[in-house]
């Protein structure tokens, strides 16, 4: 294969029944292991799903000024974070437009691990001039597994031979699994109870074996990106290059978004010194963002009727979609915005979408129309603005 495989490939490769792979940051990872992603999806919500998330970009930022650098780059307050904490954060250009989003793990006093969806090494260096800081790209040397679902804690506790009930949401701890040193963070991309396990790439295969074997009696199921995509929409979690464009890739101004327009206002710190985009974000905060990122629920009866009009039972996308779909007002003429991801929630039995709507029309409960193509014709289905996330179980934080 001319694309790269991850350190888990000796295990994930043979599991793939249909050779369905998806590209991610130059690597291939499974779209689904089984011929359909159904069971992999349900494992996330019912037992535990095991994802290979190694392709994430990972940077180790160390040194006296490590926190200062990160605080200059991202919108969350890194200096205030304690050792063992994990921050989800976006980062912006000077105009307050979002470049990327990822996590910052506080591994030690002056040691941070940053993950990102796009390569970020140059950006970190550009912001580090004059600072006493070391930036290492550990993307290839660090492998990562994500174990997500209601039984994930039991499985990891057994594998790590320790109690994890005190490990809170967005906290991390170091541990050993069958003698392999790992970092376990209570994080993930599913909106469920779940953990990510970070390991030296050389130890990836034995780690996979340890977790897979321990999890077998609990219904652990290797799962691919198709299942993850459904879960992350249910959780209302953004995907770069799908739900928003990095301002560094945007060709025109209107392709850019600010964190305030993406529902990430809560990540924009007001209690720290100057950082990239701060002034622009403060001004935008004052006047209010022009756009809102919100959920939509498609009205079933309306969708069913559109299909009944042509003599068909309703059809639903078999996978989550990631195309731009126009959203109109209830009259069906004036465009209010666009949806960027959508799909059927097998758990909630709902057709859901993530959408950008003009702020005046983004109030939950607002009735809108979403374009759907029924038998080659563009039609409009009734939909309602729904607050995100669609699914938020107690166990996620509990």
């Amino acid at each position, binding site marked *: 294969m001319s694309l790269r495989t991850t350190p888990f490939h000796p295990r994930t490769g043979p599991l793939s029944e249909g050779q369905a792979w998806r590209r991610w940051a130059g690597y291939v990872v499974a779209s689904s292991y089984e011929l359909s992603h159904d069971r992999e999806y349900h494992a996330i919500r019912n037992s535990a799903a095991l994802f290979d998330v190694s392709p994430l970009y990972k940077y180790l930022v160390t040194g006296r000024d490590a926190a200062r650098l990160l605080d200059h780059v991202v919108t969350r307050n890194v200096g205030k974070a304690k050792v063992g904490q994990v921050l989800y954060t976006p980062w912006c250009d000077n105009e307050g437009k979002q470049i990327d989003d990822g996590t910052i793990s506080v591994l030690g006093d002056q040691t941070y691990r940053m993950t990102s969806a796009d390569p970020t090494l140059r950006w970190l260096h550009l912001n580090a001039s004059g600072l006493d800081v070391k930036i290492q790209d550990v993307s290839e040397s660090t492998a990562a597994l994500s174990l997500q679902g209601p039984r994930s804690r039991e499985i990891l506790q057994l594998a790590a031979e320790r109690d994890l009930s005190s490990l809170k949401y967005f906290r991390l701890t170091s541990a050993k699994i069958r003698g392999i040193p790992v970092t376990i963070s209570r994080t993930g991309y599913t909106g469920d109870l779940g953990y990510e396990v970070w390991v030296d790439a050389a130890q990836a295969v034995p780690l996979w074996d340890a977790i897979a074997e321990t999890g077998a009696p609990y219904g652990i199921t290797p799962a691919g990106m198709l299942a993850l995509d459904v879960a992350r929409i249910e959780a209302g979690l953004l995907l770069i290059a799908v739900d928003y464009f990095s301002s560094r890739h945007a060709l025109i101004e209107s392709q850019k978004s600010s964190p305030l327009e993406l529902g990430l206002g809560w990540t924009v710190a007001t209690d720290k010194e100057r950082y990239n985009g701060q002034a622009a974000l403060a001004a935008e905060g004052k006047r209010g963002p022009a756009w809102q990122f919100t959920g939509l629920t498609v009205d079933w009866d309306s969708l069913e009727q559109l299909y009944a009009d042509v003599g068909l039972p309703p059809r639903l996308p078999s996978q989550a979609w990631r195309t731009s779909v126009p959203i109109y007002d209830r009259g069906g003429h004036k465009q209010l915005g666009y949806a960027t991801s959508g799909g059927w929630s097998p758990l909630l*039995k709902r057709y859901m979408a993530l959408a950008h709507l003009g702020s005046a029309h983004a109030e939950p409960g607002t009735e809108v129309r979403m374009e759907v193509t029924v038998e080659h014709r563009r039609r409009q289905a009734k939909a309602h603005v729904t607050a995100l996330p669609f699914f938020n179980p107690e166990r996620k934080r509990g």
Partner: protein
Amino acid sequence: MKQYDAIVIGGGHNGLVTAAYLARAGKSVLVLERRPRVGGAAVTEEIFPGFKFTMFSYVVSLLRPEIIRDLDLPRHGLHILPLESTVTPMENGDYLAGWADHDETRRELYRHSPRDAEAYDEYGRLMHFMAQAVKPILGMVPPDPTSFAPGDLAGLLKLGKHFRGLGAERLHALVKLMTMSSADFLDEWFETDVLKATKSASGIIGTFLGPRSPGTAYVLLHHYMGELDGVFRAWGFAKGGTGAVSEAIASAARSFGAEIRCDAGVSKVLVRTGRATGVVLENGDELPAGIVVSSLDPRRTFLQLLEPEHLPSHLVADIKRFKFRGSSGKVNLALDALPSFTCMPGVGRQHRGAISISPSLDYVERAYDDAKYGEFSRRPYMDIVFPSMIDPGMAPPGKHVMSIFVQYAPYNLNGGWTDAKREAFGDAVVNTVESFAPGFKSQILHRQVITPLDIERITGLSEGNIFAGELALHQLFFLRPAPGWAKFATPVRGFFQCGSGTHPGGGIMGASGRLAAMRILKDGK
């Protein structure tokens, strides 16, 4: 004492659906359940420590999507997990498998018969049209074909138009489905015996008929109905077993303000001058209510809860003739490990779907022969699932539960059911499985055997019929449960019926519960 707008007798899934819809419409509602828990025949119980048994019903196939939506059941804990494959072990050591993937299933069928592999798609298409033709009936209150009332005429007209619109070819197929045996109907399509046997099995579930008995083809269709809502995926295995479905509906009902009282059996409906005024509990307490709804089966609704003087004598006669004839039993097992089937050794995806013990049409028909003459089948038809393979929470880690639906076990067994007969029945089941999976018996940690008499004793379903009355053509639509009384009302004003004994019948469908509630609400306006 609190005066309720409505009292629902029986906390099975249909009673709960009725209660939820009435409460949602603003009525004050009380559900009275005789057992310590809600669910009726849709219950999950920890019979052996750590092992959760889906005591009676075990899969969800027909739960109406509109009910899931209207009551927002996912928010109340409903999670339906996929259960997609069926493997039929054959007596020669081969098997027939239907997998979730269409190509895989076709290739598997091709192995048995290239012609059948092709016919399979066409058959599926026909059944799709047939299910589409019948589906509107599920959602309508049956019109009385002998009545000239405007509502009935409108309903009949709608129905007539609907069937005229089908076109000749599909109308003919529908008439065949209504009249033929499932074996004969399938003979028109397929040549592979084990395929016909496995398909026909769904035509006999809950009936006292064999695959070669006329009328069973329709039941084939009844079970196909869930496929129509394929995209909605309302079929599968409920996380936590079917009891979790009942719990979700109960939770929804409570969220709308309904009260649910368990350990509260009802002995009589109070009637004053032809009108229901409340109920009398088994402990003698009287509870007044303007509306009383019974979700019990027709025999108990009309003949037990009411005094005969409140009913026209022909209705009493009709209900007495209504056939129950429970024919199925259930064996629930706690297992130390999963059985390895000779035809597909080891543990694998076959354990995540159904195992159908229906190796040939003769096998299934012979199983019926035993029952015809008052014996349980020595080698019965079985539908097996391993709930713990779909929802690992059903058993301790690494251990398993096995749910075996068994037919035939006649309610009227020669000499009657005794503890010894029950165990002999359990032995027949276990020995038959053992013949397809040697070594299986040694994996059993605990065994629960349920006969039709047990079903009757525990759930109250007369003669242990799982559909609250046989799902036979002469007992469906405007004839369910009796001519003239298929519209959820009764001769007693304010007393209504719902449940599987009313249209459109059994399975964890909830449709009768919903239709009854709509009827009651419409009456109240």
